[in-house]
């Protein structure tokens, strides 16, 4: 199944992120990973749904233009 490219995708500000992992189970396509103490958003998998942004307790996730 080909993914429709979203207009915006989530990015993490690692200077703000506390590595708590709260956002991982919120991500429907499971595009967020936390490995070796670094949080990453897989831009190829992110659908731009924004479900991770509001719940972040410290505001470390934001939406940016895909391009």
């Amino acid at each position, binding site marked *: 199944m080909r993914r429709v490219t979203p207009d915006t995708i989530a990015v993490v500000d690692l200077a703000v992120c506390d590595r708590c992992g709260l956002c991982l189970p919120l991500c429907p396509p499971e595009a967020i990973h936390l*490995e070796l103490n670094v949080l990453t958003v897989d831009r190829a998998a992110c659908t731009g749904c924004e479900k991770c942004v509001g719940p972040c307790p410290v505001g470390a996730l934001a939406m940016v233009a895909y391009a």
Partner: protein
Amino acid sequence: MPDVDVLVVGAGPAGAVAAWHAKQAAPGLDVVLLERDRAIGAPVRCAEGVGDAGLREFANPDGADWVSRRITDVIFQAPDDTEVVLANCGLGWVLDRTRFDAFLAAQAAAEGATVLVGAEATAMARNGDDRWHVRVKQRGVDEVYRARVVIGADGVETMVGRWAGLDTRVPSRDMESCAQYVLQGIDFNPNAIYLQFSNAIAPGGYAWIFPKAVGVANVGLGLVSLKADGRNARQYLDSWIARRFPTGARTGYTVGGVIVHTTINKTYAAGVLVAGDAAHMINPLSGGGITNAMKAGRLAGRVAAEAICAGDTSERRLAAYHQAWMELLGEDHLKYYRIKHALENVDDESFNNLARTVNKIAAEKRTIGRVFAHALIKHPQLIPVAARFFV
């Protein structure tokens, strides 16, 4: 390639107790307990409160060095700060999780389990030999462990469940975003936990004060961001503390997610069991998860050990774990979940009215039973709130 019987991923209460009880049930098995962080129990991502009865199934808190504070009272605070004091309403404890989690891991080690810190599982796959091959990174070196059963006790991230093909995702409405400071030099009753309900303070959740010592407490809140006004949990907490404890010294800080959902539909797969936060085994009404995690870990450890001894780690065999958990607590959580959502429609004014109603009962007669009787008459939709906090 190390070959083990049980590989437990995550050395919190669920994982440590799973390793402990797997080894106790079958001392001949090789049991390995992995902790990603450099120290078991740290960083603390928890308010550290626990009820007495559940705790005592696993450890004796009397005089233990992993206890911070003995709690006898609960103080509910309405949105307008009206206090409802329930004195001597039940015994609880505020733990020192840095020591408590290490204590549990030491129990596992004493039974003969191997405990590894700074060891992170980064992937796992089934390779047709009836074993899980789990890639573990430790001090920069990858090693593949072969395991008959992997117990995923890896918390809110729940990667083991994901790798095993289980659906561990959480709807936004069932995720509490939490922030907490350790505050020093503040004034409160050190024998009481405080719970404040207010849509302005902690929408969809509550704010708490859990004493660590006289003048020292975990002060935090959890909220559902869908109900919030655009601020994040830390910003809500900063506002609350600025009003309540403007002079408190902030000597610690943590954030995290508490999944206030019900147990995932399937907590097992061939050669895999998932326990604790990773399986959404938190009480959805109170947000408490420590004793639930230990009880699930005990079940998981025993079921894994028995399955290995019987030579059958199939999905069908391990399903017994899910059934046992649902009978023990999982079914209750379904009820609490419905109560939680019923309470979402209660506004701040109703909570204020309830507090005033209950305070008309003389303090010495204010047993939990009488409080509920009053609440039942005046505000029938609110009865279950307090009742379930120490469950």
